[in-house]
């Protein structure tokens, strides 16, 4: 079975290589000349209800059809969209205690059916998102809103009690164009949260009328630049410009989101001019760069995602900080990048470049240095590595992860003479295994929900935090994180997070490996594509109003 699947993957690589080799005779250099952008959503989204949606493909759809109070610029700084201005203490948008936010709305914002977007739409949306019966996945981000947690935690209450709790939520429309939100505690990143899709406005009348079917066209009414005109399940979605759009009108006449799940097939579709933007299959980046036709069409950009090896710090020998630091020094990160065709950037610290909190100098003392690694191991009492307990490395069994696991095994063997056992697992079983803390050493990645260090530290390294799978626990870190989460003075806050990140890097519950880089092919006739470090499934999905096609 094992050798068969290796054979199959070899065959797949051969076929892909032949696909790339034949590209020279296959790709014409002319577009259709029509203003139609065809991209690959790579699968059917779970649903496209902004309140309930999750990251990646769902968000790529929502970004076309909805606009929130706030949004992100290309550099991921905040931008006022439906809000007239970004609230600050100076413009009275934020109260001095940091607990009350007042958003003044633009008066010219309309839904795609022409009716006005008002503060009431936001009130409805936020309260709906916090409804326990809706079970919105991102609801926990908004538990700091007054009454939010209480309402969401009341699934077993009666309808009357739920209504009372819902009415007690600290979100209200002061007038038609003024929205007020009250928080339990100061939350310096609250404005970032208000730029995310779960709090984009949705239409109460439409949802009441159509129920779950409200997301089907033509019911799917938004306030964004495009409208969803067709959704053929498992096949494609079609977007057309919203005739009632209040902002800058899009240049495209149509966007097609195809749902091609197979990476080889997506590349073939790109070469057959059925797609204007496509990824390449894992492991074929080098071949793509070597291809004369395709190499000028490559688009690479950094993503706010970091990959790392995580230790379970409760299991020996990883309960010893010196062992963890030693193994960090024993891994040559650049070699892994080279194996991956040069895609990605070496990561010596956790928070990636392109967002606040990145520190280029951090972590250099644990960079590749075999001598130091051996010294640290000796200090930890492992002069003789055969005295180490058996080390097992777990990962979700995908083509890309297999390479990483074999790389790690090789590095440990070559540099320290340590034999590690590889433990590939099916994706969901692996996640359960990790969530239960059964692993010893495992592969993982983290992508930004919003560009702030407070999304990168407490949830992963705080004692008992939901995504803390290293089981790291450091009271000094916890105290600093608790302070940082509420610190309203920005320089002080960023300093707190810098200190917290340094603490984590020194304690080495993780070995950071690389920052993700996206690697795509874009047809030469696609112009105005604007990518960010937080794109969803589809590249440049936040700025499709600016894309246009040349012949």
């Amino acid at each position, binding site marked *: 079975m094992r050798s068969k699947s290796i054979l*199959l993957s070899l*065959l*797949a690589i051969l*076929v892909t290589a*032949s*696909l790339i080799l*034949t*590209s020279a*005779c*296959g790709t014409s250099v002319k577009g259709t000349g029509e203003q139609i952008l065809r991209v690959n959503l790579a*699968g*059917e989204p*779970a*649903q496209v209800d902004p309140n*309930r949606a999750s990251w990646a493909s769902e968000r790529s759809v929502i970004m076309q059809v909805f606009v929130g109070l706030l949004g992100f610029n290309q550099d991921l700084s905040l931008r006022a969209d439906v809000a007239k201005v970004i609230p600050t203490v100076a413009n009275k948008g934020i109260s001095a205690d940091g607990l009350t936010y007042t958003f003044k709305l633009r008066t010219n914002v309309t839904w795609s059916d022409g009716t006005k977007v008002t503060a009431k739409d936001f009130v409805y949306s936020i309260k709906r998102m916090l409804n*326990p*019966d*809706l*079970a*919105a*996945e991102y*609801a*926990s981000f908004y*538990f700091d809103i007054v009454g939010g*947690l209480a309402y*969401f*935690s009341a*699934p*077993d209450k009666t309808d009357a009690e739920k209504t009372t709790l819902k009415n007690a939520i600290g979100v209200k429309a002061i007038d038609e164009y003024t929205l007020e939100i009250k928080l339990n505690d100061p939350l310096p990143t609250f404005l970032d949260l208000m730029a995310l899709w779960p709090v984009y406005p949705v239409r109460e009348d439409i949802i009441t009328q159509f129920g*779950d079917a409200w997301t089907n066209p033509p019911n799917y009414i938004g306030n964004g630049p495009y409208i969803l005109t067709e959704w*053929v*399940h*498992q*096949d*494609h979605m079609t977007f057309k410009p919203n005739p009632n759009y209040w902002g800058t009108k899009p240049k495209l006449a149509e966007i097609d989101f*195809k*749902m*091609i*799940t*197979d990476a*080889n*097939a997506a590349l*073939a*579709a790109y*070469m*057959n*001019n059925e797609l204007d933007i496509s990824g390449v299959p894992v492991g074929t980046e080098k071949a793509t760069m070597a291809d004369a036709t395709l190499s000028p069409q490559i688009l690479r950009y950094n993503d706010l995602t970091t990959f790392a090896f995580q230790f379970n710090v409760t299991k020996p020998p990883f309960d010893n900080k010196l062992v963890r630091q030693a193994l960090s020094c024993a891994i040559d990160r650049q070699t892994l990048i080279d194996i991956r065709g040069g895609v990605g950037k070496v990561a010596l610290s956790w928070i990636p470049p392109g967002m606040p909190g990145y520190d280029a100098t951090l972590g250099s003392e644990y960079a590749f240095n075999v001598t130091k690694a051996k010294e640290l191991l000796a200090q930890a009492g492992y002069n003789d590595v055969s005295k180490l307990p058996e080390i097992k490395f777990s990962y979700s069994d995908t083509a890309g992860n297999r390479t990483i696991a074999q790389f790690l095994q090789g590095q440990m063997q070559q540099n320290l003479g340590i034999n590690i056992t590889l433990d590939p697992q*099916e*994706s*969901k*079983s*692996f*996640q*359960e*295994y990790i969530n239960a803390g059964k692993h010893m050493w495992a592969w993982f*990645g*983290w*992508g930004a929900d919003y560009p702030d260090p407070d999304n990168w530290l407490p949830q992963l390294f705080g004692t008992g935090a*939901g*995504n803390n799978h290293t089981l790291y626990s450091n009271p000094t870190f916890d105290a600093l994180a608790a302070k940082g989460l509420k610190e309203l003075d920005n320089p002080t806050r960023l300093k707190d997070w810098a200190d917290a990140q340094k603490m984590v890097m020194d304690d080495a519950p993780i070995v950071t490996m690389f920052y993700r880089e996206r690697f795509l092919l874009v047809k030469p006739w696609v112009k105005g594509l604007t990518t960010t470090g937080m794109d969803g499934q589809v590249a440049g999905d936040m700025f499709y109003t600016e894309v246009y096609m040349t012949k």
Partner: protein
Amino acid sequence: MTRYAIRRILWLLVVLLVVSFITFSLMHLVPGGPWDREKQLAPQVIEALNRKYGLDKPFFVQYGNFLLGLLHGDLGISYSYQDRGVTQILMQGLPITATLGITAFIIAILIGISLGMAAALKQNSWIDYLSVLFSTIFASIPGFVLAIILMVVFSVILHWLPTGGWGSVSQIIMPAFALAALPAAFIARITRASTLEVMHQDYVRTARSKGLLERVVLIRHILRNSLIPVVTIAGPEFANLVTGSVIVETIFSIPGIGRLFVQGIFARDYGLIMGSVLFYAFVIAIANLVVDILYGMIDPRIRYD
């Protein structure tokens, strides 16, 4: 015969019930649930989701609810495609998969039987060798390799056909051939072998010596009798093609049910898994039943009591 069919259909219900229970139990035993994510959801969110989808109830209550829904033709809700019911999702994919499967089946039968017969009738001629070569090649190439080769040749190099999707005749050609290749190869081999065997039977010699036209001998005596083994494998092959191929549907981006089933398993989409498994069990059981009844029509010696 009718009594036989009724008895078999009653057994079918029992089979489906057993299949549903085994699948339901296995799904809940497999490690990892629908809400295990790379980014772990907040505990309150997991609780709300479990409640919304009835996963907070005890195992037997969940199974009972599933059966109750089944009686009303409702297979429950999908967790991966949250705004649509499993019945609705399957009903949308079914005609697509069935159209593709039936097309592939017809191609496989036409190519397989004609190639196999031709090879047998002209044994050891170039047609025979070509047929053997064809069936050996297509029986050994994995479906996904053939699919990609077709795609490279006809889409990427020649630009004749679209790489995938659904809705036009040009989109059905490559997937149907990719699906038909393997069964066509098998059918060709079996037809050839059984025709050769039948050709040397006494009753064929008798028919010829009676002075019957060669055409009549061929159709009445040889073809009809050599088809029994072909029907035996054609039934399961039909079920196989109609229930969809994960690989072909994935590579050609066809919105059928084969792809859904596998996605359902990876996503621990219990509703979708149950719906697809029951559907598969149903189709396979029916196909076997049809084959058993066809035996009796082709070979009068077979009786049902």
